């Protein structure tokens, strides 16, 4: 029997998951939409974000966990963005962003990052202290205040990314490049530089979601698989490269996934999400949402 409080709890869990998932998937969707690159290593950027968060919390020993968390929020996207820039320059640019070869290349990147973390950080899953600890009382249960803050921060970052895309010159260049890269060049857009920036931005969004979930899920060198799978599902269901669709799909799948996990089982939620993709691909191959972006 599912009670009211249980339902509310499930809805909360789902919403927090959805907000973080939207952040991760937005990065993947941007990279695919603008560059036509399917970034298999996207989940590793999430993992790197979590590992940096662990390092900050552990190495700023004695300091308040909140300080480590804030430092991680600033440092993780910088480190991971720099890694992405290097990968773009060393690998993707050299294979001319060819859609097929970049799949293999980013798969290679996935293993390099994973093994690099395994060798330096080790095989253990390490928990982090939540940066702030308080509970918010709901009818029938108390809920982690940190998780609510996570959802708020994720929404804030989504809004910031949206503003970047809709209001700035580089955002306009990204959208124009996505629609027609050759014509964009004919209007002075340095397309390769836009690609590099988009790849870094996608990685930074992933890293930020990694920092946000680290205090909830801990940090582990294999933790990138889950966000990668879910982001792919979201990006496919939302319509490849369609940012509005991505956000919509992240909301539906994130909330659905969270609710089913809480009320039934996490495995069941993954099964249902995967079946949903198959169904969407059959019924609406273009994705659920259609039309204008950003």
């Amino acid at each position, binding site marked *: 029997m599912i009670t009211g409080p249980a339902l509310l709890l499930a809805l909360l869990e789902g919403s927090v998951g959805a907000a973080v998932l939207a952040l991760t998937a937005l990065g993947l969707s941007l990279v695919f939409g603008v560059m036509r690159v399917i970034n298999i290593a996207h989940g590793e950027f999430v993992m790197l974000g979590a590992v940096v968060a662990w390092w900050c919390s552990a190495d700023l020993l004695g300091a308040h966990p909140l300080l480590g968390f804030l430092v991680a929020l600033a440092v993780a996207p910088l480190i991971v963005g720099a890694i992405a820039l290097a990968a773009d320059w060393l690998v993707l640019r050299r294979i001319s962003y060819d859609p097929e070869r970049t799949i293999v290349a980013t798969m290679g990147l996935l293993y390099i990052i994973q093994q690099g973390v395994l060798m330096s950080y080790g095989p253990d899953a390490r928990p982090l202290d939540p940066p702030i600890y308080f509970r918010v009382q709901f009818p029938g249960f108390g809920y982690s205040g940190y998780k609510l803050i996570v959802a708020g921060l994720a929404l804030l970052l989504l809004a910031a990314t949206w503003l970047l895309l809709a209001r700035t010159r580089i955002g*306009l260049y990204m*959208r124009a490049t996505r*629609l027609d890269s050759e*014509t*964009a*060049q*004919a209007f*002075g857009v340095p397309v390769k530089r836009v690609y590099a920036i988009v790849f870094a931005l996608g990685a930074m969004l992933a890293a930020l979601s990694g920092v946000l979930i680290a205090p909830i899920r801990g940090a582990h060198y294999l933790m990138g698989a889950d966000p990668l799978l879910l982001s792919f599902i979201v990006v496919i269901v939302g319509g490849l490269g369609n940012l509005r669709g991505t956000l919509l799909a992240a909301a539906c799948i994130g909330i659905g996934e969270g609710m089913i996990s809480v009320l039934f089982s996490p495995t069941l939620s993954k099964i249902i999400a995967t079946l949903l993709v198959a169904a969407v691909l059959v019924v609406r191959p273009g994705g659920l949402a259609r039309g204008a972006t950003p």
Partner: protein
Amino acid sequence: MLELRKITGAYGPVKAVDEVSLSVAAGEILGLMGRNGAGKTTLLKTIMGLVPKRTGSLLLEGEELIGLPAHAIPRRGIAYVPQGRRLFSELTVAENLRMGLLVKDAPQAEAERVLDLFPILRERLSQAAGTLSGGEQQMVAVARALCAQPKVLLLDEPSEGLIPAVTHRILDTVAALRERGVAILLVEQQVKSALRICDRIALIENGTIQHEAPARDLAADPVPLERYIGVHR
């Protein structure tokens, strides 16, 4: 203004444009005509740096442009109206024009000046460009290029797929740019329109220029037109 010396452009091993030499002066309209697949679009793309392999010499007011990356060329003063319009279809009309303005960081006032040429577009500014009619889209394509404040304007079949009345309007607007000293290279398939607005016409076949003459002469003696584009009278 713009001078091409033995310009060659190739996608792979095949040269779609082969040692073309042409020049366009300020305030002049040079027409480029030829059959389908003759290499007209490739020639314009080669000028814009959008063709992978290009050799020869391309001088804009005496400055060499070959060797510059494609994105640096518009800023030097060459604007492009591609075949098939190629608007950023999901962006609004205003954003499409902004793409033109950003080439030289021109102020919004420049867009207003351009919009005076196509006042209908004022009502469409916040609409996605892909939702406009064919004629309006072509106007946006020309307006977007003009927002880049070009010294040289390349137009690839702006009348393709439009009804004569609309074609007329657009070509008249283009012809009026002569007064501003813009050098214009116009690909135009309709002989009548081309003879009406061009000063000179170059005929291209298999990537090479076969014949070049003042439009007046071609109107008087259409033999070369018949030969290279197969018009009958």
